[in-house]
C-alpha cells in the first residue's frame, strides 16, 4: 500500500508535538512490509531519517519550468532528494505560476515554521501539492493537521484517491474557545471533504463531532504512542538532592497548558511542607505573569523558571524530577507525560488531556481542581509506596504503548476507506 502524506514538521527540526507524532506514526507504519510512505514537508533540512520513508520537500518541487542541469540540482537538493525526482516532478507542472515568487529552480520557498504569513504558506503548499499528486503513485492521501488539509483536498481532487485526515489538534484546543474563523473554515472544509477523520483522542473526536458537525461514523480515535527512548538518554545520570523533591512542569507557558493552576497548587503544597521545589520549564506568553504570580504567593524561592529546554536537556530535567505534572486545560493528546513515565517519573495529568484516556498508572485530576493537584503532589513526595508504585507501574504501562500497534490501526482504517471508496 502506498500512502502520500502531507505534514508540516519532521524531526529533528520540530517545533511542537506534531513532528514527533508524525515521525512515530510513520515509523510504526513502516514496520508493515508492504507499506510505502511518501512524506511531504515544506522544508527538509537534510538530516531527516529517510530509512523508512521517502521525503519530498515542497521547497524543492518545481511549479515553474526551469532548465537546470543535473549537477546543479544535485548540489542544491541532493542531500535529501534524488535529483531525478526533481525532473519527474517538473514534468507535471500543471499551470503557469510565473506570477508567484519562485527561485532559480522554479520552486517556492518555505520557512517550514509558523510564520506570520502562514496562510500564504498554506496556500503555496497546496499549489505544490498539485504537482506532487500528479506525479506520485499512491492509494491513500493522509493529511496531518489543518495546515495540510487544503493540500490533501487538492491532491484528492486531482488523483481521485481517498483522503484521510489526522486531527492532532483543533483550534478549540489552541484558543480555549476563541476560535479564529479563518482557521476554523480551513479545518471544517478539510473535515467535510475528507473520507475519514482520525483523532488523537476521544476528547478531540468529540470536538470534531460537536463543534465541526461531523458524522460520528466517519470519525475514529487513534491514540498516539511513544518511541522507545534511546540508550544515551537512558544513561543520563540525574543530579538529585536526596533531601529535596522536585516537581516539574514542562511545556509552553500558555493558557492552554494551565500553568496558573500549577503555581496555585505549588503554593498550597509549600504552605505545608518545605522540602519541595517546583520547576516550570519552557517559554510562552504567560511566563512573566507566572513569575509575578509565584512572587505574589511568596513562593519564588522554591519556584524556578529555567526557560526553554530542548533535546537532551529535557530528559536531564525530567530525570532529576520526582513528579511530572501536566495541568493542561485542553490537550488533544499530550505526549510529554508518556515521555516522563518512560524515564520512571510519576506523573500527574489533567483529566482534560487526551492521553488520560489510555493511561492508568498516573494520577488524574481536573485541571481546575488545585486541591486535588496539591494533594497528589504532596502524596507522591511524602508516601514512598505511592512514588514507587507509580514509577514502576507507569514505566511498565508506557512501554507497552507502541507506535507499531497504532500503525496497524491506521492500516485498518485505510482498508476500510478503500473498500467503501
Amino acid at each position, binding site marked *: 500500500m502506498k500512502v502520500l502524506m502531507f505534514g508540516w514538521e519532521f524531526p529533528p527540526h520540530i517545533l511542537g508535538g506534531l513532528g514527533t507524532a508524525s515521525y512515530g506514526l510513520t515509523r510504526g507504519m513502516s514496520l508493515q512490509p508492504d507499506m510505502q510512505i511518501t512524506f511531504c514537508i515544506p522544508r527538509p533540512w537534510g538530516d531527516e531519517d529517510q530509512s523508512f520513508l521517502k521525503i519530498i520537500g515542497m521547497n524543492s518541487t518545481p511549479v515553474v519550468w526551469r532548465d537546470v542541469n543535473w549537477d546543479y540540482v544535485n548540489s542544491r537538493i541532493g542531500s535529501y532528494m534524488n535529483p531525478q525526482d526533481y525532473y519527474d516532478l517538473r514534468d507535471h507542472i500543471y499551470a503557469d505560476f510565473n506570477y508567484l515568487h519562485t527561485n532559480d529552480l522554479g520552486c517556492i520557498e518555505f520557512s517550514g515554521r509558523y510564520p506570520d504569513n502562514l496562510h500564504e504558506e498554506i496556500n503555496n503548499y497546496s499549489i505544490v501539492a498539485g504537482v506532487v499528486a500528479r506525479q506520485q503513485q499512491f492509494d491513500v492521501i493522509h493529511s496531518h493537521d489543518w495546515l495540510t488539509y487544503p493540500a490533501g483536498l487538492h491532491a484528492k481532487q486531482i488523483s481521485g484517491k481517498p483522503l484521510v485526515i489526522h486531527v492532532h489538534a483543533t483550534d478549540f484546543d489552541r484558543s480555549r474557545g476563541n476560535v479564529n474563523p479563518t482557521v476554523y473554515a480551513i479545518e471544517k472544509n478539510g473535515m467535510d471533504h475528507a473520507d475519514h477523520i482520525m483523532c488523537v483522542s476521544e476528547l478531540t473526536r468529540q470536538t470534531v463531532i460537536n463543534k465541526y458537525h461531523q458524522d460520528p461514523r466517519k470519525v475514529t480515535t487513534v491514540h498516539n504512542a511513544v518511541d522507545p527512548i534511546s540508550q544515551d538518554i537512558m544513561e543520563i545520570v540525574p543530579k538529585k538532592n536526596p533531601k529535596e523533591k522536585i516537581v516539574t512542569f514542562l511545556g509552553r507557558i500558555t493558557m492552554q497548558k494551565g500553568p496558573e493552576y500549577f503555581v496555585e497548587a505549588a503554593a498550597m503544597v509549600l504552605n*505545608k511542607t518545605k522540602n519541595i521545589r517546583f520547576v516550570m520549564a519552557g517559554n510562552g506568553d504567560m511566563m512573566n505573569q507566572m513569575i509575578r504570580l509565584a512572587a505574589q504567593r511568596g513562593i519564588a524561592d522554591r519556584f524556578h523558571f529555567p526557560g526553554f529546554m530542548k533535546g537532551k536537556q529535557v530528559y536531564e530535567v525530567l530525570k532529576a524530577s520526582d513528579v511530572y505534572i501536566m495541568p493542561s486545560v485542553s490537550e488533544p493528546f499530550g505526549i510529554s507525560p508518556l515521555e516522563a513515565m518512560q524515564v520512571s517519573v510519576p506523573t500527574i495529568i489533567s483529566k482534560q488531556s487526551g492521553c488520560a484516556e489510555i493511561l492508568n498508572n498516573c494520577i488524574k485530576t481536573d485541571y481546575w481542581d488545585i*486541591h486535588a493537584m*496539591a*494533594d497528589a503532589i504532596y*502524596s507522591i513526595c511524602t508516601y514512598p*509506596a*505511592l512514588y514507587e508504585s507509580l514509577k514502576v507501574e507507569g514505566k511498565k504501562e508506557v512501554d507497552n504503548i507502541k507506535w507499531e500497534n497504532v500503525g496497524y490501526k491506521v492500516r485498518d482504517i485505510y482498508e476500510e476507506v478503500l473498500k467503501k471508496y
Partner: protein
Amino acid sequence: MKTICFYFEMHQIFRLKRYRFFNIGTDHYYYDDYANETAINDVVERSYMPALSVLLEMINNSKGEFKVALSLSGVAMEQLEMHAPSVIDLLRKLADTGSCEFLAETYAHSLSSLKDEDGFREEVKRQCNKTKLLFGKMPKVFRNTNLIYSDEVGSMVADMGFKGILTEGAKHILGWKSPHYLYHCNLNPSLKVLLRDYKLSDDISLRFSNSEWSEYPLFADNYIGWIDALPQDEQVINLFMNLRDLGISQPLSSNILDFMKALPACAKAKGLTFSTPSEVVGKLKSVAAVDVSHPLSWSDEERDVTPWLGNVLQREAFNRLYSVAERVRLCRDRRIKQDWDYLQASNHFRYMTTKSSGIAIDRGIYDSPYDAFTNYMNILGDFINRVNALYPEDIDNEELNSLLTTIKNQGEELAALHKEIEILQTRTIKEPIVNSEEVVKGPAKKKTTKKKESK
C-alpha cells in the same frame, strides 16, 4: 443425609470523606455522613429489609426447619442502630425463632488476624459482646473478615474458645477433596472448619440474574436437584454469601427472593435438611485436617489476600496502620478508639487494588487506586499524629505500658487512701471527744504510706 448450611454476611463501612493533606492536623473528622446515610438506607431498602423478611417468613412457614446463620460486623451494627433500627428489630425477631444463628466476626471487619493478634482477640470479643447485647446469644462459631483463614488464624480462633470457623472451599487447598464434609484445623483439631461451596454459592450470589449464563433462569427445584445429585455420602453443603447479594448484586426484579422462598419446600421433597453452623459442628464428625499455610479468602479467582494486600500501596497503608496498633490499645481516648475501628475496615484496602478481576469493583468516591491510597494515607497521617500526641514518641511501647500501669496503680492507691482519709475523718467527726493527738495521726499515717510508695 445431606444438610444445607446458609450463611449471610452483613457489613457496612463508614465511608471516608475527601480528605486533603492540608486538612492534616486541623480536621479530625474523617467520615462522609451523607454518603454513609444514603448508602445504608439504600442497602436496607433494597436488600436487608426484603431479604431478612423473607428469611423470617421462610423460617415461620417451614416451622423452623429452615435455618440460617448471619453475622454482623460491629461497625455495621453501629450504622444500623444509627440509621435503620428497624433492621435490628427484624434481626431480633429472627433470633427469637431459634432457627437463626449469629456468628462471631471482627468488630471492624478488619484484617487484624493477619497482623495484630492482641487487637484481633479484643476486636472479636467486642463483636461477640455486642451481638449478645443486641440479639441475646453469645456466638459459638467464628467467621473471619472475607472468610480469611490460615492455620495460624485457626489456632488463634480455637484458643479463643470457638468450636468452628467458616472459610472458602478453595480448590488449591482441597485438591481432590470435597468441600461437602466437615474438616478441622491442623494445628488444633478442636476447631472445625466449614468450607464454602463456591460453585453453588456463586450460582445464587453471582450468576442468578445473568441471562447469558447457560443455566439461566435458575429455579429452586433445579438447584435443589443439583444438591440432591451429589454423591450420597456427602454431608453438608455450605452456601456462604453476602446478604446484599439478595437484592443488590441480584436485583429484586430478578425474583431472587421468590427463588429463596421456594427452597425449603423443594429441599423437603428431596429429604434435604437445613442446619446452622453450630449444629453442623455439633452433629458431624470431621473427616480430615485442612492445611492452609498461606491465608485464603473468598474473593477473586486466586482466593487469597491479594485483593487487600496485593500491591505495594496496600501493604504500605496496612503496615502504617498497624504500626500504631499497640499505642491505640494502650490509650483510653474514646474517639481514637472509634476511629481505629472505622479505619481498619478491609474495604479501604480493597479500594486500592490494582488487580483486574473481570468484575468491576466499586471504588466509591475514588477515581483510581492511587486516589484511594492518597486519601486514606492523608487520614492515616492525621490519625497517627493524634495517637502519637497522646504519649511522647520516644518512649517505647513496653516502657509506656509499665508507666501507664504504674500511673493506674498509683491512681488506685490514691483513691484507696482518699477513702481511708474519709473514713478517718468521719470517725474523728463521730468521736469529737478524743483529744487532738489522735486527729494528727491521720495525716501522719498518710505520710508514711507515701514514703512506702516512693520506695
